[in-house]
């Protein structure tokens, strides 16, 4: 039993690396550009499909396929933002959502048209990496691929963090995230900063897509589920924090694998439940903060509850003032 839990914790934590990569891109778009790209998961799948095709049809080694695919996807993100997202953002809050839902549908059906509905995988192309593992003392099995993905996630998120902190582009992106108009007053083109962020976000999505295809299988319609995992990791970790995204991804991964221990169907459900709990906790924490702390806010809730239980009659201590007001 204990071994099983330890194994699940390790597997879940490592799976969190994958979630962190796909969530980092989403978090960057939400935090910097204030744009929610609902086609983020589909872009991950597109990255996977392109890599699979380059490898299987083009005969390009996997690593090279990835190296070709990533810049191409970055360019696509840049162009996508310049031509589509930027215009959508001018149309209020609803338009970006509609546009990216539409884009997601177009991508899914486009991929279906190009590659058919078969499940595809990179597993066969990466040789023994897809099944090789280390056996730790105590019989704990550690897959080499999950470890590789996790290490990549830490490196990528660390590099992104350093880029945002230490480079001219990074500072420009952070300044734009904090106050686009003030950034413009410093000579930063907020549009260029947004396009750069979109390019990075799509690259991260595509990289995550490759890992998804290495771990298992993808179909043209795999995107929306990945989008939900990415959102959950972002919310659990806290929007706009890259380190938080890694933690959020790991929490999500661990909850899923622990849920899987309870019942085979419990894996996804456990992840969703943890996400919802974190969301409720955050909302009530903010509500408490705005209402004089936890104790005061609990007292307010208790009064409200009592009032509801007594049939909506006003609480005795409030009765005179409400009469006076009437």
């Amino acid at each position, binding site marked *: 039993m204990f071994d099983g839990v330890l194994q699940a914790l390790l597997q879940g934590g490592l799976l969190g690396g994958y979630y962190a990569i796909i969530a980092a891109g989403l978090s960057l778009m939400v935090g910097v550009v204030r744009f929610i790209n609902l086609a983020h998961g589909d872009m991950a799948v597109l990255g996977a499909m392109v890599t699979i095709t380059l490898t299987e049809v083009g005969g390009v080694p996997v690593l090279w396929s990835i190296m070709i695919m990533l810049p191409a996807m970055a360019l696509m993100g840049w162009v996508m933002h310049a031509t589509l997202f930027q215009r959508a953002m001018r149309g209020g809050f609803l338009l970006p959502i509609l546009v990216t839902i539409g884009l997601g549908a177009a991508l899914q059906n486009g991929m279906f048209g190009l590659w058919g509905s078969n499940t595809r995988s990179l597993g066969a192309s990466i040789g023994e990496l897809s099944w090789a593992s280390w056996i730790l003392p105590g019989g704990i099995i550690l897959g080499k691929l999950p470890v590789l993905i996790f290490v990549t996630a830490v490196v990528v998120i660390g590099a992104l963090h350093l880029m945002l902190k230490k480079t*001219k582009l990074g500072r420009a992106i952070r*300044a734009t995230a*904090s106050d686009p108009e*003030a*950034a*413009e*007053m*410093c*000579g*930063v083109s907020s549009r260029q900063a947004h396009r750069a962020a979109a390019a990075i976000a799509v690259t991260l999505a595509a990289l995550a897509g490759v890992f998804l295809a290495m771990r298992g299988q993808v179909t043209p319609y795999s995107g929306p589920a990945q989008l939900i995992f990415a959102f959950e990791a972002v919310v659990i970790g806290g929007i706009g924090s890259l380190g938080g995204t890694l933690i959020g991804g790991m929490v999500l991964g661990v909850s899923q694998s622990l849920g899987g221990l309870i019942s085979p169907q419990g894996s996804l459900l456990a992840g969703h439940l943890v996400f919802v709990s974190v969301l409720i906790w955050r909302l009530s924490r903010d509500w408490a903060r705005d209402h004089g702390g936890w104790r005061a806010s609990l007292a307010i809730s208790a009064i409200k509850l009592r009032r509801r239980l007594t049939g909506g009659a006003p609480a005795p201590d409030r009765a005179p003032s409400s009469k006076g007001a009437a």
Partner: protein
Amino acid sequence: MMTRLIVENLTCRHGLLTAVRDVSFALRAGEVLCVIGANGAGKTTLMNAIAGTHRPVGGRIALDGVDVTAQPAFARVRSGIAMSPEGRRLFADMTVRENLLIAAENGRAGDWTLARVLQAFPQLRPLTDMPAGRLSGGQRQAAAIGRALLTNPVVLLLDEVSLGLSPAAVEGVYQSLAMIKEARTTTMVVVEQDLTRALGFADQVLCMAEGQTELQGMPGHLSREQITDAYFGIHDKELSDV
């Protein structure tokens, strides 16, 4: 000396409200213009229009003879117009050094370096690694002006220089501004609520009321009474009409 900044018949709207109506002025290199006027007179809108963050509906703005009216704000910074805005607008979660670096990296090349800004605003020296959100009002203003200077502007716009600052902080900021003025290379447009301060510092004064120019000229040629009347938008004509 040639004319550095020309503002011609500038008109700006916020929806149906005309915030700036037909304002014109011209400044030579190194000249200082103080814009005065009551709250809501259109001073900040005028500044935003010159900086490029507010798009005017009429008129033109020219820098060294080049029309910049259509340029977005970031391009104007690269042309040489920089602003320290109302409310300072520092990047609160970034350090003072990072705030200054952003301007230095994205602006023009020139004499203003981080070291020179820290020399002109000595109060910032011990604060460079502190998040800008934790600065006091005076330090924030110094950082915002320093940030604008680091883009090496030929025209420096300073909105609400002394608003919300302690008298000592105002004194400190104006000492630094006097040094910049003495060099006579940077043209300045300053919005200042303190009349005495404005008249003492400026080469030209522009008094606005309800978006229009009420009075314009050199401080030495204007009487205190003329200026206060213009400040409150009092016209002799209106009074005799009653």
